[in-house]
């Protein structure tokens, strides 16, 4: 465990029948970091996690986790991984306490032994410890699942879209908890479809159609954005996007909430844009240069890869 690298993937591939779920994945995750895997639904996030957690075996390439081969040493590896699948998958008919005890026993440990590790998380749900897990709210279910994934003090925590379907307050709270875990020396690999959460990771990998587009710190990824980005607002968003996309000078136009993020093919065209939009019957247009976010960079990378 002297090795700094916790997960090392070399040219890993996985296919289901004719579908290539993952292709040529090269990846290194370092000890103690929060590593984010960002990508749209169906990009291959869950498949990669299922390979890391030994639920699937890779078809090609080599994958070592915590210095152990996922194919030959899976048994040893499973003792050291905590996995939280995307879907809440604890026993609905067992109580909070019983679920926690169950996973502790299955890993040959006790709740008492590792209580310090989960105290911060479990204290939120402890008042409900006699309630069946199926009757908890979304945020509490997630905290229970995290407690269960941590109860055997794993060296690596794998969280598959832990915040999907959880309210905004609980999401923020959850990320605070993950930061707290870093102090216990636990490496965390987390996937999310939310770009704002990517910023909370130490490093992120962008994944699209089973291929990694970029791996870096969130800041470095944002800085990789090549063009100049403008935010365009108008009264009616839909016709605005349609008009922008019809303009040959416009390179990209992506909706971001109430505004549209635009890049141009022609330098300086942004000055003439209001005129063009006016001709199209779109009024009250505001245009301002903005600094790109991680999502802008991601969309840029996605467009480059066909």
């Amino acid at each position, binding site marked *: 465990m002297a090795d700094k690298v916790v997960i090392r993937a070399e040219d890993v591939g996985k296919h289901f029948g004719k579908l290539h779920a993952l292709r040529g994945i090269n990846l290194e995750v370092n000890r103690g970091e929060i590593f984010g895997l960002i990508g749209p639904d169906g990009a291959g996030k869950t498949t990669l996690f299922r390979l890391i*957690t*030994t*639920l699937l075996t890779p078809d090609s390439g080599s994958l070592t986790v915590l210095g152990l081969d996922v194919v030959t040493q899976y*048994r040893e590896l*499973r*003792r050291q*991984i905590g*996995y939280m*699948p995307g*879907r*809440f*998958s*604890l*026993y*609905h*008919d*067992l109580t909070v306490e*019983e679920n926690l005890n*169950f*996973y502790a*026993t*299955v*890993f*040959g440990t006790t709740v008492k032994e590792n209580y310090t590790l989960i105290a911060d998380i479990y204290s939120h749900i402890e008042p409900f410890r006699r309630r069946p897990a199926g009757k908890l709210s979304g945020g509490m279910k997630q905290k229970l699942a995290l407690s*269960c994934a941590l109860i055997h003090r794993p060296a690596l925590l794998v969280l598959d879209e832990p915040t999907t379907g959880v309210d905004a307050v609980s999401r923020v709270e959850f990320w605070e908890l993950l930061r707290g875990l870093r102090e216990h020396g636990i490496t965390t690999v987390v996937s999310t479809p939310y770009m704002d959460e990517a910023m909370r990771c130490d490093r992120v990998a962008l994944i699209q159609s089973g291929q990694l587009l970029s791996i870096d710190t969130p800041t470095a990824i944002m800085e990789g954005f090549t063009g100049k980005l403008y935010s365009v607002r108008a009264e009616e968003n839909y016709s605005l996007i349609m008009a922008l996309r019809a303009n040959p000078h416009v390179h990209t136009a992506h909706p971001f909430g109430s505004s549209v993020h635009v890049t141009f093919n022609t330098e300086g065209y942004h000055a003439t844009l209001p005129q063009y939009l006016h001709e199209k019957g779109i009024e009250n247009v505001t245009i301002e240069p903005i600094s790109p976010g991680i999502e802008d960079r991601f969309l840029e990378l996605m467009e480059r890869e066909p």
Partner: protein
Amino acid sequence: MRTVLYLIRKEFKQIFRDVFLGKAIIAIPIVQLLIFVPAVTLEIKRVNLCIIDRDMTSYSRGLLEGIQASGVFRIKQLTLAEDEAYSLLNSNKSDMVIHIPLGFGKDIGRGNPVKIMVSVNAINAMSAQLSWVYLNGIISGMNMDIALENIGSLLPTNLKQVDVTHRIWYNEMLNYKHFMLPGILTILITVIGMILGGINLVKEKEIGTIEQINVTPIKKHQFIIAKMLPFLAISLMDLAFGLVLGRIFFKMPFVGSIGLLFLSATLFLIAILGLTLLISIYSHSQQQFLFVAFFFLIIFILMGGIFTPTDSMPLWAKRINLFNPMVYQMRITRMVMLKGSGLIDIGKDLLALLTIGITLSVLAVRGYRKAV
């Protein structure tokens, strides 16, 4: 070992926390035994007859008296019109038409061979056959009387004949309840084990808990054992329960060793649960599981010998039955309960159950990793 015990404890907790399941496990055997055992019977009672007596002599009346005295038949209609008789047969109001032709008595008196015509409604082949056998018995009795009468007038010596006496063993009263109960008990424990055990595993898949289990260090065989034992225990408990009920309500005898019956039931249930887990491992939903489970269940039950003796099945069916655990268990249960068979008598059957059980369980353990 500690892990397996803990897993089993978890299963029991879940089963008995389910208010409905907890009750159903007790209620189902009571209801099934109390309804099925008295209801399912092969005894033929009250076969409705329609008689066309064209003869009207003392001989024909003698025959009818004999038929009526048997208690099996009931003369519902006496007629001279064939049309009426056959329309009764057609409308299921009568099960059998006996046509006694004109000259029946006269011919007997002269010593000529006589014929009567019997038409049987064989919609239910089994009851048709049985009533036919009863009727034959009555007629051959009458034949004997006629023969004695004729011979007696000529030679007043004893008639030389083979006199058949019979005694029915192991179920002296030919009590169908005592024949059916062991069979129904066998079906009952099969259904309970199969449905409870199979749905349980598929449910873990549907909810997704199996994902979580799979990343733990639980070993394949530990998981399968923990999925098997609770349902084995519940089924055995229901077997014990059913035996007590049978004793109380149907005065079911138990000649053999209870321990031996439970040994064989354990082997049998390992086979059934092995198959159950094998099916559920490859099923993605409860529907899929139930569909396949019923396929096997129906084959097992209908070919298992609850109604029809397996010995009289065609050869290919007997070959299939070599792999049907229910055949062995049904036979063992009846032999142990009614006949008091010992380990040596049922040894071969036990060995067969053990082989099927081990094979299916090993397949389930091996299939588990591949399919989940």
